């Protein structure tokens, strides 16, 4: 495979990481919590799409919409039930709670669907687009377009809308935002809803790319997306996107040119290097846009 | 010979010069006030003297040794102790443990002796317990030895922080706004405490303070800084009438 081909593959998976990383970074930005359950939201999205596809045979657009709504509601519920009571508790307790939520989701789906992998029933039967020696599948194209489109919309939302501004204000200083009349509780809920919706979309796109789903499918991509968020600078939205794409490209290139076995080790090695050189991540400090 | 001799001390943060050309001579048992408007660079000077910041220029000579580049804990061991503007106690630990930690570098038993409880552990721990209690007793806090530090009233917390600094056996004590947040009665007691410390421990004290009654009342010499530079130095009477100082405070 050529370098360009690897790069395109990297962009493909990277855009999915970026979508999931956005959810991590938004939640971290606003309540300083590493939301361990976010990877499982992605799994939740994949299973929601799976159910609507197999049981109701809905078109993919509707499936995506249902997944988004379902994941957004799930994210808000999780925040209200599990995280909100711990707002003033030690941060590590909130972290453990997030881990608890993660385990709970995984085991719930284990009970509901069993441990074995299920084929994800969605394919695009168009021949791949050939540009010279390059083969670009339609899935890659759609994934890239969709995720970039979502990111642009999100950027607009955060920068221009009232709720977006409230989100930025709360992430800067929750108390001050509250004094300025912002309903922090609602703002945090909305952040979770948006982050989880992005995670759900990521889950669907991931399942189309790697069409096997099972209850633990969110763990590794979740971890990698989280690392992507840290690489870019956690709490910084453009950082999450950059980190996600970088992560995908690095992974694809190491798998292609070095070794599949060592690919994860290299990814972690890069993470460690970046943290040691610039603990706040690539875009940390320079761009103070935190959400 | 001076206890502390600071020459041309300065630091810049990314182009912004926070402190420049700072110089001071402190003799053993001096009591000097460092004053200046908010943001003048007083605490930055403390941070430079204690090794928290590395100066971009200048020398800090403590009894014939240049201590620039030494780590904060090494500078403490050489004899400069400090308190903080916003009290930094070991909040969840007992009052006596706060003091005992400051005795750390005066103790010698090695890690293995601590883990396996060799005789040196028992001997030194007993000594240190006694010394810590004596020190607390000087501050009328011995009865609070087992209280958790965060439960002390504000004034007592300030006192404990001073006691803890003294436990490191300093030659020079830096007090960063010791009277901040105190009422007049507490401030008056604090002034007495500072006098007492200076004579009891025979040390030099450099203090940052905004309370002019306190500064003028106890310091023999005052250094005034503004925008990181010394604008005046002298006795309280000289400072009171110095037009530059009045200008800096009234914002001319």
């Amino acid at each position, binding site marked *: 495979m050529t370098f360009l081909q690897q790069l395109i593959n990297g962009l493909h998976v990277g855009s999915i990481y970026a979508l999931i990383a956005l959810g991590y970074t938004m939640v971290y930005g606003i309540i300083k919590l590493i939301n361990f359950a976010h990877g499982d939201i992605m799994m939740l999205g994949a299973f929601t799409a799976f159910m609507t596809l197999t049981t109701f045979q809905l078109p993919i657009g509707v499936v995506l919409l249902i997944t988004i709504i379902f994941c957004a509601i799930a994210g808000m519920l999780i925040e209200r039930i599990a995280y909100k009571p711990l707002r003033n508790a030690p941060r590590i307790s909130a972290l453990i709670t997030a881990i*608890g939520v993660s385990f709970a989701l995984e085991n719930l789906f284990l*009970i509901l669907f069993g441990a074995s992998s299920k084929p994800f029933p969605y394919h695009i039967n168009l021949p791949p687009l050939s540009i010279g020696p390059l083969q670009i599948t339609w899935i890659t194209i759609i994934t890239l377009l969709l995720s970039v489109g979502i990111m642009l919309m999100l950027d607009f939302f955060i920068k221009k809308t009232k709720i977006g501004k409230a989100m930025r204000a709360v992430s800067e200083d929750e108390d001050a935002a509250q004094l300025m009349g912002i309903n922090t509780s609602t703002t945090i809920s909305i952040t979770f809803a948006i982050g989880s919706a992005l995670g759900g979309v990521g889950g669907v796109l991931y399942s189309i790319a790697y069409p096997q789903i099972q209850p633990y499918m969110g763990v590794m991509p979740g971890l990698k997306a989280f690392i992507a968020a840290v690489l870019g600078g956690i709490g910084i939205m453009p950082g999450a996107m950059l980190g996600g794409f970088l992560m995908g490209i690095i992974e694809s290139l190491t798998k292609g040119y070095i070794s599949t*076995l060592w690919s994860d080790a290299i990814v972690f*090695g890069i993470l*460690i290097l970046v943290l040691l050189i610039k603990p706040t991540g690539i875009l940390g400090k320079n761009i103070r846009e935190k959400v | 010979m001076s206890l502390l001799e600071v020459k041309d001390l300065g630091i810049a943060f990314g182009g912004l010069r926070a402190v420049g050309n700072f110089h001071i001579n402190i003799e053993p048992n001096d009591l000097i006030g460092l004053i200046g408007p908010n943001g003048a660079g007083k605490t930055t000077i403390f941070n430079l003297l204690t090794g928290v910041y590395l100066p971009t220029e200048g020398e800090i000579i403590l009894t014939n040794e240049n201590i620039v580049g030494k780590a904060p804990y090494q500078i403490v061991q050489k004899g400069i102790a400090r308190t903080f503007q916003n009290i930094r106690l070991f909040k969840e630990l007992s009052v006596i443990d706060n003091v005992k930690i400051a005795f750390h570098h005066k103790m010698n038993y090695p890690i293995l002796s601590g883990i396996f409880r060799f005789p040196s552990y028992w001997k*030194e721990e007993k000594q240190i317990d006694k010394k810590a209690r004596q020190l607390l007793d000087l501050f009328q806090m011995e009865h609070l030895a087992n209280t958790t530090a965060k439960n002390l009233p504000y004034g007592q917390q300030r006192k404990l922080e001073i006691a803890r600094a003294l436990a490191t056996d300093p030659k020079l004590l830096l007090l960063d706004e010791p009277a901040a947040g105190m009422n007049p009665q507490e401030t008056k007691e604090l002034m007495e405490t500072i006098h007492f410390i200076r004579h009891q421990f025979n040390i030099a004290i450099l203090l940052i303070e905004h309370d002019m009654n306190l500064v003028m009342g106890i310091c023999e010499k005052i250094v005034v800084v503004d925008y990181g530079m010394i604008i005046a130095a002298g006795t309280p009477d000289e400072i009171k009438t110095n037009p530059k100082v009045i200008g800096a405070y009234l914002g001319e």
Partner: protein
Amino acid sequence: MKQSIQYLINIFSIIILYILLFFLIQTGILSSYYSGILILIGINIILATSLNLATGFLGQLALGHAGFMAIGAYASAIFTMHFNVSSTIGFIVSLLLGGIISGIFGIIIGIPALRLKGDYLAIITLGFGEIIRIIITNLELTGGAKGLTGITRLTNFHITFWITVVVVTLLYTFVHSRHGRAVLAIRENEIAAEAVGVPTTYYKIFAFALAAFFAGVGGGLYAHHIRTLMPTTFRFIYSVEILVIVVLGGMGSFTGSILAAIVLTILPEALRDLADYRMLIYSIALILMMIFRPEGFLGTRELSLSKLFLNHKVKKEGGKTQ
């Protein structure tokens, strides 16, 4: 005088507990299944108390404990396999070796990692833990992804019991020495600790390496109990599970860790009949516990038998014991 009475009470209680368990196992009242659980409890106590040193007492959130455990497990197993060790002395040597190698890695990783704080430290230790696991997966020496098999069963109830007692005692005495006070000072306020003459970097790395050392010892015990080491066992989820024990017991409380290790080892076993539901119940219990008692069972307090017995106010130098 008071202190020696406390020590006596603690030593006495430990011996009584040992004799009791010994008797129960010897007479067959506790089957080998239950003595297996006792061994796992011991190993989990070692892992949790050692992680508590780094996280609860030093205040540094570390998520790579399973990595250190893996190093100790593989090192001691390879040692006993290579030299055909079958004696208790040889086994203890292998455990120490595993601990020392793990401790050395603790220093190597700690020096760069401990410059970071909080969540960043958690992430970087997680990264190191995963790298250790991936290296183990790809080395021939460690049996690669297929795992290391054919390890002799050298771990038994007796050795686990006493090693656990020794580890907890040493951790406890460390924390209650001048060095331990320095470690606590770092947790409370690193800047102030430095400002009263504590070399903070040194103590951070030391405490971190000591935690890694004991995790390695725990790993060695684990290897010679399970007898087959799989790299997948030491995923970061395992580090997380150890952290859960620490937080549930109370950060900064060894007795809390012991209590939580017992509960969290027995609970999944007790729920075994519920099959798939047990992990769900476990995780929901965890969430509820955190919501209603975020500081864990004991917070930073220690349970003390001597306090129970003597029933009068004694200082914090109380007891540990189970």
